[in-house]
């Protein structure tokens, strides 16, 4: 009997292939969305973690000479023989007939991690690199180099413009610097019991790794991806739920028939569970594969995003990681289980001889909508409670969940209310019927519409978040990277001399005096700055008072970073004690993304008064021709190349990266909308057959089938419109929670929120188009329903 029952259950799908397709496709798409986002996320994270310890040289501590710019190779050997795990680097300018090339010599055997060129494995083996001499050159200098040096040149686009990499020995001979090194990279893993650096190499200074802040920004980006993953999860669950509920709805009559024929309830439920698990696994598998494709298409962008912005290398190839394909399958199975449990409960409680009439009418009552609404209000109240009293990242995500689920649950009630409102305005009988019938449709379509709501809200939220992040970050870059070159020296004795040299060669020199101190109990970097046009024109504040820079210049006020202000509980016009006998009002708050320390800025004269012993070792330099100035500094003044940072290039690079982030976000947006549209299509298709008895009387009263089809299309668009309009404020709230709440909890700084109305308008159009497109086919089908089908309704009327 079991077998017969199973074939009977399965035969339903054979007769209703469309429903079967809807079930499998719905499950597969939901899984695909989740696993695609997860795949990108996991891959980016894993690659970043792997690379984090072994990135470019900036990630490592370095040993540099206290004075001069050369280290004796014997010092390197002495350090190694004392146990210090260091790797030598030699840098210098190599003249070619087309200008000079920055030549970097590395020692691949001792260099920590993979800082050797990417192309090495393919084009040259280590034997060549070590003993015969191979240069890896950026494309722009490869030709010129090829005419200058005897060694083999391999062009490698991953190398920074104007740079060539080679073995340390080759670099020494090309730069005519036998036995000399520029600096030593300190491996993060050192043996136990090392002798102090001063004992072995007193002439060297340990310079800490430079870009520690990058980690935090990367974390922030990952958090955004995680948030997107959660949203796609929510959308996926709603779609799965919708698909499964409809599948049960359609089979109620069959279940009753089987029960009436004597199939035990337990067998029936067991077989249904078996059938559904099978479907879930198969559809989940398809979904995971689909997600893989999505991720594979998007991953180059994600890889480029992380690599460009943070220097983290993300392998361009995707691996099938167990954690994401398993989680994808789990979503399919759990989602199915969650959705099916309610339906199975209903079957178990269904009176044996009750009418098998589809429950389309039964659920139409407003009671369900009101119950869901009450639940939603409860969730909103919880969310508000969390927002006011809660703390911590987990609760921040709980707040997000409350907001999203609550919004989804209250949607049917809001839709009903909107339709009722429209109904009251209706003048003609047809329109009254249209609105009444629309209200009737709300429960059947509510799951699909919830999916649309969440998809649209996610789009609004994530776009707002990413765009706000970009606007803020561009401002931040403009402000902090305004000087074209940034110079950092290690030898304080050189400071005055360098400043004098800079003053005659650059258009403006901005010495940066700094001490680490405690301000209001917060570890803070106190800066003395030379207030001038660079600060006045480029610095934007989160909050300020009139004449900020005039007051700072006169030594009557201080500018503090957001981190310092928040941690110390201060804001503008509050006073803060910077030194035992110096208390100043705060003139402005400035954003300082990614810095774990607080910052406070005062004028240079005041700083020199407070700390007469501190001399500047960092200089921002304005120049119309930074390249020429850089050459002058290295060639005439003899400054090591590593001491100069070209900020314009960093800025251009960062901006390019945000464009790529947008591409990824945009692609994921389109995808979520497509999935929501599919959900609408499927619910309309499955509702179509149930709805024939409801439409037949309208047709009998004189509405043409064509007109009915048009109304059907209109109905879908109207419902989608109301949903989308509701989605925009929800999306903005989502963005607000992410920027103002989650980010503060995670990183201690708040991102200002910017609105992009044109984008939202376009999104609304897209959502409507998606809904219309989804409704088009069901409407056409309706318009072509044979009159005989409609007549049959009356023939069978009970």
């Amino acid at each position: 009997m079991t077998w017969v029952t199973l074939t009977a259950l399965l035969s339903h799908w054979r007769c209703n292939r469309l429903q079967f397709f809807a079930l499998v496709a719905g499950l597969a798409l939901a899984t695909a969305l989740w696993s695609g986002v997860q795949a990108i996320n996991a891959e980016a994270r894993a690659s970043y973690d792997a690379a984090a310890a072994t990135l470019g040289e900036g990630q490592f501590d370095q040993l540099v000479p206290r004075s001069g710019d050369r280290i004796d190779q014997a010092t390197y050997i002495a350090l190694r023989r004392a146990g210090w795990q260091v790797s030598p680097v030699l840098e210098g300018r190599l003249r070619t007939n087309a200008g000079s090339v920055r030549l970097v010599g590395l020692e691949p055997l001792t260099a920590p991690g993979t800082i050797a060129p990417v192309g090495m494995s393919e084009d040259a083996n280590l034997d060549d690199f070590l003993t015969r001499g191979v240069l890896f050159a950026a494309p722009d200098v490869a030709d010129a180099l090829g005419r200058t040096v005897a060694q083999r040149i391999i062009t490698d686009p991953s190398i920074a413009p104007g740079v060539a990499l080679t073995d340390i020995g080759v670099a020494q001979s090309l730069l005519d610097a036998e036995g000399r090194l520029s600096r030593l990279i300190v491996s993060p893993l050192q043996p136990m019991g090392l002798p102090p650096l001063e004992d072995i190499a007193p002439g060297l200074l340990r310079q800490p790794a430079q870009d520690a802040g990058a980690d935090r920004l990367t974390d922030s980006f990952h958090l955004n991806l995680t948030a997107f993953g959660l949203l796609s999860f929510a959308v996926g669950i709603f779609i799965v739920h919708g698909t499964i509920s409809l599948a049960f709805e359609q089979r109620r009559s069959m279940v009753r028939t089987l029960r009436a024929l004597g199939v035990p309830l337990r067998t029936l439920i067991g077989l249904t569970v078996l059938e559904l698990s099978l479907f879930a696994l198969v559809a989940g598998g398809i979904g995971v594969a689909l997600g893989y494709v999505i991720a594979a298409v998007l991953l180059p962008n994600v890889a480029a995003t992380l690599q460009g912005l943070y220097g983290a290398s993300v392998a361009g190839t995707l691996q099938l990681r167990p954690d994401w394909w398993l989680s994808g399958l789990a979503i399919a199975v759990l989602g199915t289980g969650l959705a099916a449990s309610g339906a199975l409960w209903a079957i178990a409680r269904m009176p044996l001889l009750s009418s098998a009439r589809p429950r389309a009418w039964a659920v139409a009552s407003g009671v369900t909508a009101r119950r869901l609404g009450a639940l939603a209000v409860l969730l909103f109240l919880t969310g508000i409670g969390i927002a006011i009293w809660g703390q911590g990242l987990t609760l921040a995500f709980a707040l997000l969940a409350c907001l999203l689920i609550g919004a989804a649950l209250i949607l049917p009630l809001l839709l009903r209310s909107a339709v009722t409102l429209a109904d009251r305005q209706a003048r003609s009988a047809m329109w009254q019927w249209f609105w009444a019938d629309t209200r009737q449709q709300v429960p059947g379509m509510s799951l699909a519409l919830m999916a649309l709501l969440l998809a649209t809200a996610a789009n609004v939220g994530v776009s707002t978040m990413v765009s706000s992040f970009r606007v803020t970050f561009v401002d931040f870059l403009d402000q902090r990277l305004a000087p074209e070159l940034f110079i950092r020296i290690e030898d304080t004795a050189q400071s005055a001399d360098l400043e004098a040299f800079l003053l005659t060669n650059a258009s403006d020199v901005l010495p940066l005096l700094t001490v680490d101190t405690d301000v209001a109990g917060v570890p803070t970097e106190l800066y003395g700055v030379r207030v001038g046009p660079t600060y006045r024109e480029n610095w934007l504040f989160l909050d300020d008072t009139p004449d900020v820079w005039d007051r700072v210049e006169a030594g009557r006020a201080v500018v503090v970073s957001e981190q310092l202000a928040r941690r110390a509980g201060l804001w503008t016009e509050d006073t803060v004690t910077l030194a035992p006998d110096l208390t100043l009002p705060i003139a402005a708050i400035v954003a300082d993304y990614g810095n774990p320390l607080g910052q406070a800025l005062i004028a240079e004269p005041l700083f020199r008064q407070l700390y007469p012993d501190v001399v500047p070792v960092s200089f921002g330099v304005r120049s119309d021709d930074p390249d020429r100035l850089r050459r002058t500094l290295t060639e005439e003044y003899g400054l090591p190349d590593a001491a100069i940072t070209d900020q314009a290039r960093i800025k251009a690079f960062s901006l390019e990266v945000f464009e790529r982030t947008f591409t990824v976000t945009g692609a994921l947006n389109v995808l979520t909308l497509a999935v929501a549209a599919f959900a609408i299509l499927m619910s309309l298709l499955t509702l179509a057959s149930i709805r024939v008895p409801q439409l037949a009387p309208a047709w009998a009263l004189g509405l043409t089938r064509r007109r009915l089809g048009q109304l059907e299309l209109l109905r879908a668009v109207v419902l989608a419109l109301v949903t989308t309009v509701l989605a925009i404020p929800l999306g903005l709230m989502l963005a607000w929670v992410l920027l103002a709440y989650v980010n503060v909890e995670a990183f201690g700084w708040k991102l200002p929120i910017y609105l992009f109305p044109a984008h939202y308008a376009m999104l609304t159009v897209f959502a409507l188009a998606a809904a219309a497109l989804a409704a088009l086919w069901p409407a056409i089908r309706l318009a072509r329903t044979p009159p005989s089908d409609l007549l049959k309704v009356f023939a069978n009327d009970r």
Partner: protein
Amino acid sequence: MTVRALLLILWLPVQAAAQGFAGLGTDADGFAVPTPDPVFDFPKDHGAHPDYRIEWWYLTANLTGPDGTAYGVQWTLFRSALAPETREGWTDPQVWFAHAAVTTPDRHLVAERIARGGIGQAGVTVDPFEAWIDDWRMSGLDVEMLDLTARGTDFAYDLDLRATGPLVFHGNGGYSVKSAQGQASYYYSQPFYEVSGTLTLPSGDIPVTGAAWLDREWSSQPLADNQSGWDWFSLSFDKDDKLMGFLLRDDAGGVFSSATWIASDGTTTAYPDGAFRARALEWHEVAGRDVPVRWAVQMPDRGVDVTVTALNPDAWMALSIPYWEGPVIVQGSHAGRGYLEMTGYD
């Protein structure tokens, strides 16, 4: 580029060369190859032989702490040549790398170093004797009296070694055949070191005493192309006899074995393929693969029928070239201690 890639590069020419000829002959790349009936010249031969492709100074020690706990120590310096010559400075084609390990019954701590020749970061001098890479050092007036040090992020050791017996030569007077096709190496040992010193573990310093065994081997053609790995045993019995035996496994499941019986006075007897037998009794999963950690070892000619058990089955050398190496306990017809090295379990 990883060190593993480097080692692959170093390994490939060896494999390619091994396929090119059967048995003896001159290596196409200009490397010298071992020939039978060697005449050694000490102390010069304690030093490096740059015209051979590979060479090692391989020391293992079975030690005991004050509470009777057994420990194992490994110190190995490898030389691998990209070309059969030496040059001053960075262009020197000699690459050096080293492995160090401390094994306790429940921990196995390892570290590795890699360096270029020609710049003073690693090398071997013979008079006085010093083999070094970075701060890892095996040094003394000669190889009879050595000071041995190494350290990693979580361990260090400093041991004094004193030889109480003569050098012993494996195979035919130090010419050790490694396959039926005739691949061979020069191979001698100093298995008679008495050891005392200190291990530094995460839990603190431990004074130790025990015995150590130094293997010296160099060649240009270590394995035949169909050989996939080896199981190498150095066993010191309580009756003061010692046994060195190894199995070279081939892809088809066959083995080539070789052994040396070392009497307490240092006289040796070499045994050809087949005399030394070892059969895996128990496998253990380590680093995602199964490795035999208990062996039945037999050599009927000497009445040896023992069980060799790893002190710590997790003695996996998770380094650029991963392999298993650790102290073992010997029970059966003969009791004792020793070391086991196993490669090629992928």
